């Protein structure tokens, strides 16, 4: 959980290969240009690791982002996946279009709290409604990093700005918002908690709809003062994980172990993978929307930093399914399947005569 040092884009060297025969380094990207110690770089590392572990072929991945320090990171992982660094706040639209064009792509989007909760808020909300199959990561630092430290919409109420303003508004809780709007995968994590984040990312990779992971990711340059709820210090000392979380991929079944009654809760995903939650203090049922709402309310009221899988509904139809699309990517359909035959045009013309 220690603060990361520079150059996280390269995973630790290891000879091991994953189930499609790739080494972890095949999942690396360009060197990061972020500040050393930036939380975003830690998240990059978890993403690299999770995609490696789940054995997703990089060429089958499409990366998306908006604008901000956070939104630069897709250049730093999965260097051999196509990427689309869009305009500020509107990545959800681009990802939705790409997903419809080619539903076989595994889509991952990285956004910032400014990108998501300010300029992009409407698109974020409508993305949730559409349930595009997209892993949506908010690298949430409560601040506009790239433009040098202005408040974002997730900034703490009462926090003070470098040129003297005090933020008077309550932060937007993106998890609460997503839940309210019917999101089927709502999770929160901390950039330095690689283990939890990787498990959540693994689950998100296997989720067939939109998967939101709101990751508190300290901005060491502009918002890492100890009383910021987005600082390393606060996050480390206030992190209350809902559970210990393990991911068991459908292709990697675990030996049947003798689990004590009530000790773990297994949640099954659409593709047969399992999220195994080991209870910690309480017992949160992530398949209950009202339980999820209560957890979020508790976090807000008690100013607790609750992390883990907050809500999961693996079944909702995703955007491509809602559109009842053919299984093949629309992008690769041949002309013969896209241009109706002459008889069709004749029929249309006949109707107009």
């Amino acid at each position: 959980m220690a603060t990361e040092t520079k150059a996280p884009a390269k995973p630790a060297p290891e000879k091991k290969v994953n189930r499609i025969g790739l080494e972890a380094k095949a999942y690396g990207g360009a060197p990061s240009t972020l500040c050393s110690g930036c939380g975003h770089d830690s998240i990059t590392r978890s993403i690299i690791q999770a995609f490696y572990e789940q054995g997703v072929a990089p060429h089958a991945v499409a990366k998306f982002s908006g604008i901000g320090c956070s939104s630069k990171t897709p250049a730093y992982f999965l260097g051999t996946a196509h990427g689309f660094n869009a305009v500020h706040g509107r990545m959800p639209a681009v990802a939705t279009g790409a997903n419809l064009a080619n539903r076989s792509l595994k889509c991952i989007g990285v956004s910032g709290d400014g990108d998501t909760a300010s300029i992009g808020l409407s698109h974020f909300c409508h993305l949730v409604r559409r349930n595009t199959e997209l892993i949506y990561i908010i690298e949430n630092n409560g601040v506009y990093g790239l433009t040098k430290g202005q408040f974002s919409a997730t900034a703490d109420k009462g926090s003070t700005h470098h040129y003297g303003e005090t933020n008077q508004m309550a932060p937007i809780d993106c998890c609460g918002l997503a839940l309210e709007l019917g999101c089927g995968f709502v999770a929160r994590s901390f950039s330095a908690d690689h283990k939890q984040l990787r498990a959540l990312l693994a689950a998100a990779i296997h989720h067939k709809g939109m998967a939101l992971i709101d990751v508190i990711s300290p901005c060491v340059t502009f918002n890492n003062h100890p009383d910021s709820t987005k600082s390393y210090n606060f996050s480390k000392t206030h992190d209350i994980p809902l559970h210990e979380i393990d991911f068991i991929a459908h292709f990697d079944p675990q030996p049947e172990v003798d689990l004590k009654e009530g000790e773990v809760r297994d949640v099954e995903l659409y593709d047969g993978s399992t999220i195994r939650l080991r209870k910690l203090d309480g017992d949160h049922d992530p398949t209950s929307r009202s339980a999820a709402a209560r957890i979020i309310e508790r976090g807000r009221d008690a100013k607790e930093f609750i992390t883990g899988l907050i809500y999961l509904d693996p079944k909702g139809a995703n955007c491509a399914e809602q559109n009842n699309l053919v299984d093949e990517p629309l992008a690769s359909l041949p002309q013969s399947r896209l241009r109706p035959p002459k008889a069709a045009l004749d029929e249309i013309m006949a109707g107009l005569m």
Partner: protein
Amino acid sequence: MGTTPAAKPHRSSTNPAAKPVVNDFTIHVATVNGSGSQSSNMVLMRSLFQMGLPVSGKNLFPSNIQGLPTWFTIRANKAGYLGRRVEVDLMVCMNPQTARADVQALHAGATCIYDAPLNLKGLRSDVRFLEIPFAKLINEIPDLDNRLKKLLANMCYVGAVAQLAGIETKEIEAALNKQFKKKPKAVALNMKAAELGAAYVREHYGDPAPFRAERMNATAGKIIIEGNAASAIGALMAGCSVLAWYPITPSSSLCETLISLAKKYRTDPQTGKSAFAAIQAEDELASIGMVLGAGWAGARSMTATSGPGISLMAEFAGFGYYAEVPAVIVDVQRTGPSTGLPTRTQQADLLEVAYLSHGDTQHIALIPGTVHECYAHVMAAFDLAERFQTPVFVLSDLDLGMNSWMADPLPYPKGDFDRGKVLDAKAVAELKKAGKRFERYRDADGDGIPYRTVPGNENSEGTYFTRGSGHDEAARYTEDHEAYVRVMDRLARKYETARTHVPAPEPTGDAKAEIGLLLYGSAEACRQEALDKLAAAGIKAAALRVKALPFHPDVAAFVKAKKRVYVLDLNRDAQMLKLLKADLPVELLAKLRSIRHYDGLPVHAQTVCDQIAALEKEGK
């Protein structure tokens, strides 16, 4: 200027009142919207069409849903002039709110049918009034509820008009059959109403009208279609598989038609699954974003909108230009600025679209002038978008898009899709074998157009990172000023290449004439009539219809060959003229003169002729 409004007295010199005319007349029907008159008007128009007369139908409707004035104008013209004509031969007054003004606007010698309670006959002595008690007539039909009574009163005026103008009953019936497909009861009821109207005219107003429809043979095998429907068919045939849109008049019907067509023609009969995705986005910023995402991922994608939506797309349009992502954006223009007159027509988004976005941006735009071109240009837009890897705009307008136009059937497309320079995994591998490598933004062919790959390409050297920030030939992030200039210069080169790939302008009229009329878009509808009127006024002119930005070399050639060229802009600010001035060789510019029509109503030949004649007289 020079707008000749529809609601003003206007005495035509070429069509003096009371001179009987065959197959050349205009019928103007005033109702309120939401009253169901639309189907009556369509039946009237179709009946004429089925009799073989060239017709057009224009719907002038308010920006509301129910209860406000609406006019429908049918023009029948044996010479095939189907643009707007200001003079009305037969007025049908059904709307108390506007009846007086409608009558005042008639020219002497016009005929006016009106609903009896309106009691208009005293208003003018130079107009022939036919009072008809529509409600009373309809009351003869038993067992009708109020809604039906209203609807049938509308059909009743159809019968009256038919009787007066000599429209054959069997064509009314045929048109009704088309309208109420498979509902013989509805057809019978409507026929009954029409017959009541006809009978009333027959009995009370025996004198022949000063105009008449006579069967001719100019419509065999033709269709009647709205531009938006033609555009939708174009998109269907072009293989558009992702549509993202946000409703806005006058573009909604384009999207809605395309969705309906795709439901029918893109659903796999075996699986029931669809090869077409349509998303009603949360706004236009999102819709263009989706289109770019889909285009980037390799699908043919489009959106359609109108002015306010185009404004909202400005940021993403610049992204598409700079990051080189294909997209098709149809702008069915309406009267601006701002919300303006959202149910009126104009061509005033030219300047905005040409340079849409901050920074140095230039866009390819196609400007259809006919329903056929709505079809063909939308198809071409998909090819050009992929060939040039850039957003391509199609600038239609409300007049073209939402009004009814007679045309030949749309031809089945000849060529195959042009998917442009796309490298698949194999092609990337071959490049490598040849000692080269894929570089997304390299001008390998000298035409400014680089090669692209699409996500999913299995060759790891075939991937790249797309961004709106500075990048070099290999798509790497850079802030280097030289790399920046190289990319920008290549983009300028690409735009130059496009000049000869966009549709060439279309010349018509006497090629040797000294005077030129340069027009574009829906102004086409009045082009031939204007040329003929000019000729009649002793001014020989040739026309050139510009069909695209950037300007094809033929545009300069046309201006060069003329002494004076009148540029007809359907906007206040002479937007096409401004674009021409920015682009044409400077020595040609002194030849250009502006004529404009921008009141939101379709342009008509008379104002074109009048404005040119006045300027010619004024001494050039």
